[in-house]
């Protein structure tokens, strides 16, 4: 286990990506756990789409998300209106802190002392568990992966499979230490024990908190995708259900979820569909015998409305959080999810997190990529992730000329030395005479060329200038 993984996000310095990445690369356990899992996921995804016209389906996915974003403010209002008609209370939060306070206030109003949670990346973004604990409210994760991560006092290393960085042995030891189960590699046994322990908690929890995969404006419906049934428990057993989600999760029509669901589960885990697709459109009615008597939706902005301002960056908001980009990312597979030090790791994290933590904090995120393009090729909603990475790289070194500051920390990586070199470079390349003179001087004095170019030559040999320039050689040939 890498020591860095033990930290909670509250004291992770996102800037320290390199030391964490280096540690992970030298940790054979991490390497093996991720390699094995990602290989499996890639194969499963591929076979799940067999027989599909995948390009057309991805086009549809992209168009559904783009259409939703094109009408985002109207859709959010429609969603609010429909949900309210259905008896669901809608709250709006400008950032994670406000969202936490909203959840707390609902808990306090109900005299709640314990919260059971279904999987929700937005609640990770809000650092809700930590906040609730501080307020004296117990918050327990019920998704098995999240439960493991919480027991280990870690954060998820993958958005779909939170405990993917651990192998059975490590989990067995953890469950033994924290919950007193026998040391066993029998996954059935370990799972059965978690079931027993969590069932107790479901029955006694005052409030259930879940995420949302799609929110349908047309009918006022919250859709949740899951395999375990803990999401259904969370949203059914406690008398109060609070769903938290980003403002971008809304879609106009119920029909839209059929295509997005088909893309989501196949891209994520290679399943045709998950065990449960849970659609919630209201609290328990007067004559119904179970279900929560109160349902709330907290719509969280947390930087999304800023991303929304820019025509290119906007594409980030199409994401349906399938995780396929990380499963296919050569960097993610090698360094694992914790190296990034961010709530969302991998390619989606690299294009989303700079908006949340700023480009000064997140300066290494857009460069932690070989730009191989795999993420963009598999993304079910066709987010041009590599283009967005390049754009964010530009943002992080630009002065304020090219684009007015759209991302917090804009220009944080700009070095005046580098800027000067590039300025000189472009000046010379725009003047043929100067260019020729420059290259021929370079060829003459090539012995003086430095052998090291900073980070670039750490793992590469420096290119050498040729004895004669291309222009000179071409001239000889034509004589």
């Amino acid at each position, binding site marked *: 286990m890498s020591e860095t993984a033990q930290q909670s996000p509250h004291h992770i310095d996102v800037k320290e990506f390199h030391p964490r990445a280096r540690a992970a690369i030298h940790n054979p356990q991490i390497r093996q756990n991720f390699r094995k*899992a990602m290989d499996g996921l890639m194969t499963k995804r591929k076979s799940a789409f067999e027989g599909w016209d995948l390009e*057309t389906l991805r086009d*549809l996915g992209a*168009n559904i998300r783009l259409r939703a974003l*094109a*009408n985002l*403010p109207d859709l959010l209002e429609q969603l609010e209106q429909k949900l309210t008609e259905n008896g669901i209370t809608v709250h*709006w939060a*400008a950032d994670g802190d406000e969202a936490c306070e909203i959840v707390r206030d609902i808990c306090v109003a109900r005299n709640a002392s314990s919260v059971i949670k279904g999987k929700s990346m937005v609640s990770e973004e809000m650092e809700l568990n930590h906040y609730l604990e501080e307020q004296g409210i117990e918050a327990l994760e*019920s998704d*098995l*992966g999240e439960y*493991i991560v919480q027991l280990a006092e870690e954060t998820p290393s993958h958005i779909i*499979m939170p*405990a*993917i960085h*651990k192998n*059975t042995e490590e*989990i067995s030891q953890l469950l033994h230490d924290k919950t007193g189960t026998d040391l066993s590699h029998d996954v059935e046994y*370990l799972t059965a024990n978690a*079931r027993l322990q969590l*069932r107790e908690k479901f*029955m006694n929890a005052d409030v259930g908190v879940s995420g949302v995969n799609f929110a349908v404006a047309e*009918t006022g419906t919250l859709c949740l995708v899951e395999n*375990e*049934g*803990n999401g*259904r*428990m969370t949203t*059914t*057993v406690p008398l109060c259900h609070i769903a938290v989600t980003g*403002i971008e999760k809304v879609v106009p*029509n*119920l*029909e*839209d979820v*059929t*295509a997005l*669901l*088909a893309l989501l589960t196949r891209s994520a885990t290679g399943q*045709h*569909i998950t*065990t*449960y*697709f*849970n*659609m919630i*459109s209201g609290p328990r*009615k007067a*004559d*119904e*015998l*179970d*279900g929560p008597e109160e349902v709330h939706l907290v719509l969280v*902005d947390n930087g999304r*409305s800023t991303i*929304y*301002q*820019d025509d290119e960056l*906007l594409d980030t908001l199409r994401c349906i959080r399938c995780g396929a980009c990380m499963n296919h990312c050569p960097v993610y597979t090698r360094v694992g999810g914790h190296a990034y030090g961010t709530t969302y790791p991998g390619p989606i994290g690299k294009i989303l997190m700079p908006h949340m933590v700023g480009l000064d904090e997140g300066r290494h995120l857009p460069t932690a990529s070989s730009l191989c393009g795999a993420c963009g090729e598999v993304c079910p909603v066709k987010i041009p992730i590599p283009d967005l990475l390049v754009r964010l790289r530009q943002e992080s070194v630009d002065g304020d000329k090219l684009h007015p500051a759209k991302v917090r920390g804009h220009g944080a990586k700009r070095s005046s030395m580098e800027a000067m070199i590039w300025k000189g470079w472009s000046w010379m390349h725009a003047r043929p005479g100067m260019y020729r003179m420059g290259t021929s001087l370079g060829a003459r004095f090539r012995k003086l060329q430095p052998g090291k170019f900073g980070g670039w030559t750490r793992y590469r040999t420096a290119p050498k200038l040729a004895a004669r320039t291309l222009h000179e050689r071409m001239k000889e040939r034509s004589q």
Partner: protein
Amino acid sequence: MSSRDAILQRLRHRTGGELTAPECDFSVLNRPEWSTAEKLDMFERTIESVHGEVHRTTESGWIDRLAEILQTRGAGTLLIAKEHEIGKALQSATKSREDLPQLLIYDEPVESWQEALFSEVDAGITSTRGGIAETGSLILWPSVDEPRLMSLVPPIHIAVLKASELYTTFHHAMQSQNWAAGMPTNALLISGPSKTADIEQTLAYGVHGPKELIVLVIE
């Protein structure tokens, strides 16, 4: 200004200007019209591939089959609906036969018997609003008579599906049943028993919901 108004205002007055919404063509989801037999084969294959169990039976034979299934599993109690025809049929059958487990009727708010529901019920039986062949899914709209937890808490969930109510795709089912006209408080697609792969990608069943999903298909 409230956060709500501030967020909406920022979204309304975006610096990038008006966005245009692209057309969405759903025809990629269309499948050829399958016969009921083809749909049933497909449904069976798909749900069995994720550990669901399918038993083909008939209007007159399903109770026998159910009794057999529950006996082999040693189920002592079966949770049923009060008013639904399935529940009614079982209530009257149990008067004349001994091979059915003890029937429990879900007719009280869960608060009054939650402990028992969680620890004493071996199996629950529900109806369905049809099935989806392509993904091997059951459509459930829990109701006053068949509450949500019936299909979630007992370790065995038995669902009764009429073969004639199979749809090819989710899209088709939703359109045919006109879901957009009005959704119930809770609607579900169930496609197999509860499972997890969170421990090193090893599948384990029955993590929070039923360990077994058994579908009785009435042909």
